[in-house]
């Protein structure tokens, strides 16, 4: 297989913000075979104005490994030319990015589906936990997992 047709895959866990145009450029640099790119960014909501920040705890080591396992499944299921998954941890303010998934393929369908699959699996399998910090200065509770996320992941 020529080097240019091998999927380029990036998995990162980091506290700092990510640069979406730069991450997209990394997938497309020097290639002319990509026909579609889906970029999904998950942002921190202010929950009707009551949230000051989200604190994201993670399991170092397992977070990278588990996202890599999910990415391997996506690369095995869809004809992707590139796949990026970046998840932040630490304190994240409303309006800031939390997670980024980029899927590149020759045609749109594979890229749409792979990005959707990645997000469903990230939510239910990647070891991250959100805790709310409220505007009144108090530390709110841990965010509860949603049953609909399990239902969404079961679609695949």
């Amino acid at each position, binding site marked *: 297989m020529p080097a240019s047709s091998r999927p380029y895959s990036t998995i990162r866990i980091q506290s700092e913000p990510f640069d979406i145009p730069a991450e997209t450029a990394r997938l497309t640099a020097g290639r002319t075979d990509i026909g579609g790119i889906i970029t999904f960014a*998950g942002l921190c909501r202010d929950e009707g104005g009551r949230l000051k920040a989200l604190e*994201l*705890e*993670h*399991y170092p*080591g*397992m977070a990278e*490994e*588990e996202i890599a396992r999910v990415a391997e499944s996506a690369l095995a299921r869809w004809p992707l030319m590139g796949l990026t998954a970046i*998840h932040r941890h630490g304190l994240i303010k409303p309006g800031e990015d*939390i*997670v980024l998934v980029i899927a590149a393929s020759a045609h749109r369908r594979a890229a749409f589906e792979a990005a959707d699959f990645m*997000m469903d699996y*990230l*939510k*239910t*399998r*990647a*070891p*991250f*936990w*959100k*805790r709310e910090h409220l505007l009144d200065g108090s530390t709110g509770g*841990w*965010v*509860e*997992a949603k049953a609909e*996320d399990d239902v969404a992941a079961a679609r695949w």
Partner: protein
Amino acid sequence: MTKLVYFAWVRERVGKSDEMVDLPPRLVTVADLLAWQQTRGEEYEHAFAEASVIRVALDKRHAAHDALIAGAGEIAFFPPMTGG
């Protein structure tokens, strides 16, 4: 010795993020381990009261409650995940 690690509200209830323990040899499955945790004092009883909701990872891989724990060097306990 086995390293036990805790995250999110399991960590807060247990009162520590990790510990080294000698697991009793009679513990065979993840479910046995969860039941044993409930017997280790008030904090553990509180943390593991709803054992069915606790997720477990053996050497950084998700494990079902009927999985065998033999050979695991690091066992993690945490609530259902809320990333993404």
